[in-house]
């Protein structure tokens, strides 16, 4: 069937109607329309972030390897809405695995509010967000969105002195040169010197350690593993491959690498 439209001359009211439609469209483009963009988002995911998700409060802890199995996308610069660019973790706490994921997301940007949105939900630094990636639910706190916040952290090296009271059989584990590495294979903690003193009974010993550790300096605070503040008298969790030591910090100073 051939359709045809009866034509006639243009009237002012007709032109006004079309101009109104086009005008609202232009206004919407400049005032409301969001710009599509790709941003890098750092997400802090820990085991406890996944506990209770969709269980209505029933405890359902996931195994530690769940987080460690999230792999970097072999081709992260694809056109997909989401890709994992980097997986990073500190080996600082065996009881609560924490992974930092750098995600590359297709987002839209609202000029007026300065907020990025992913799949319609605002992508706010500090908010809990869920992402589905290759059939895996990733849920965590947004640590950073590229371009939104300036990262004030600086990387520093500290010489830390500390002591730890251990059972006699544990002393043999503390050896010079023992290291802890992060997932990039960079050494984040290394035992430089070990002294073993008698403890308060015959069953235990006091181990005095000198450690070289890599930290993030944030204002006046040194953070080990991105999260644990180094302070005199406070415990520092060291998660070696075969044992864990809670070292009480007795002194620390910044050194040049």
């Amino acid at each position: 069937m051939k359709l045809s439209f009866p034509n006639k001359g243009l009237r002012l009211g007709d032109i006004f109607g079309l101009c109104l439609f086009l005008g609202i469209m232009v206004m919407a483009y400049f005032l409301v329309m969001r710009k599509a963009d790709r941003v890098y988002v750092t997400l802090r995911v820990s085991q406890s972030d996944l506990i209770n998700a969709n269980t209505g409060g029933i405890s359902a802890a996931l195994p530690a390897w769940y987080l460690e199995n999230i792999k970097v996308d072999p081709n992260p610069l694809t056109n997909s809405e989401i890709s994992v660019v980097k997986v990073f973790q500190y080996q600082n706490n065996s009881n609560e695995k924490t992974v930092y994921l750098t995600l590359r997301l297709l987002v839209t940007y609202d000029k007026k509010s300065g907020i990025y949105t992913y799949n319609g939900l605002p992508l706010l630094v500090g908010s809990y967000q869920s992402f589905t990636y290759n059939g895996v639910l990733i849920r965590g706190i947004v640590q950073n969105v590229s371009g939104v916040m300036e990262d004030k952290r600086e990387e520093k090296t500290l010489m830390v002195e500390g002591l730890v009271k251990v059972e006699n059989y544990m002393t043999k584990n503390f050896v010079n040169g023992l290291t802890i590495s992060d997932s990039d294979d960079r050494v984040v903690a290394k035992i430089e010197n070990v002294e073993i003193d008698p403890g308060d009974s015959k069953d235990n010993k006091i181990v005095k350690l000198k450690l070289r550790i890599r930290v993030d300096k944030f204002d006046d605070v040194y953070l080990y593993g991105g999260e644990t503040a180094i302070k005199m008298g406070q415990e520092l969790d060291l998660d070696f491959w075969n044992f864990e030591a809670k070292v009480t910090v007795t002194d620390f100073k910044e050194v040049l690498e």
Partner: protein
Amino acid sequence: MGCLFLPSVKWFFGWSILFITGIFWLTRSWEKTIVYGYWPLSVYYVGQLYVFQVIRPEELYLPLYPEGRSLYFKLTPLLILGIAMIVTWVIKMLMGRVKTDWLILILLISVLTRLVSGFEMKILPWWVEIGMMTNNLALVVWWWWTSNYLKSAKKKDREYFWKYLGEIIKVSIIIGSLLVLIQTINGSVLGLVVEQMTTLAYLGADSVGSWLIRVVGIWNHPNEAAYYILFWSIAWLLIRIKLGDNLKEILKKWLLLPLLALICLQSRTVYLAMVPIIFWGVYFYRDKINIKKLKEMRIKGGKLWLIMGILFLAVMVMGDRFLNLLTNFGENSGWDTREKLVVVATNLTKKHLWWGVGDGNFIPVAFREDLTGIMKTFPEAVHNGGLLILTEEGLVGVVVWIFFMMVFIKYWWSYTKKNLKLRWLLLGSLWSQFIVMTFQPFSNILMANFIVGVLLLANEAKLSK
């Protein structure tokens, strides 16, 4: 059809501008631009998406909703056209060039009551409520523009309109059905900008393990897809009957596409909704159905295989789905969940009797106020359209809808005195709609059959003068 392959939402906006400007260029009339441009733009729900999370994932008891539950709103080209339509309509009204229409006045009251209901609960921001109201109002105003146009247009112009609307609905049915069939073959969505879903969701316990995947087309759910395809088809049929087509002119090969799509969508309620239309066809075309001739027909080759294939598919799919229904009565089954949701809706209705909880607000309000716990495991709207309207729009909203239906049926009865085929097709489609709404959470009364029905009344009003 070209906009199916647009790369992004922005391109869709650009395409919409070209489309509307193109119609204006052809017709040199804003009125005709509205009359001819609104329906094609309303086929796709594409626009800038806004998501409002109303239930967090950790508040739910089942892992079926990993992102919790959200309400959605889209800034679409249709909404922008709607605003322009409303503004120009107000100007036209002020200039006194508008004829009043009872049906449309009742619908305007319905838009107003929905706005009051939405604002009462404060679930969504005010600008979303205004946007939703504008969408509702735009449909009514388009009706008004078109009714007004049909009442004052020449015979030739009216004929153009009906042929155009018939063709547009036909193209919409073909596109919607083709996408369903391609998705079924593909086993997934296609990643097109016009698709609402990016993945195929979990669709109920009785769908798991089905040998034929349930897809969604350009909609959100297979049942919704089947509902729209069926009622678009009925609307197209209404137009063909109105234009006086005979059975041979109606039964075209392309109708196999919606038929196959409806089978593949596996919606039991839509299968049931087809029964009144089949009865209508058998009754009014009984003289054309000659059993003796059918027995003597010798179908061979490709046609035979096609008919056998469709019959086999229909028997297998429908048989499987209805068998599932009969074995699905236990705890947390489809029936059990529906019954529990009715209890939730009844409790909500008692609390918000007059104005309801607001259009689309059933899930967040029921989740907040439900004491039965069902909303924590199944955060969905009550699976009964009538009860959903009562819960969301309150008694005031229901009374307005009943009044609208009564006035519509009265007019329809009177205007179709000489065309019983047309009369009973629309009344049969209302029965079909009632069947679907009894079992599904669909509260949209103004489906394509109604839209065409009201326009036919406007057309008949002109003819009867």
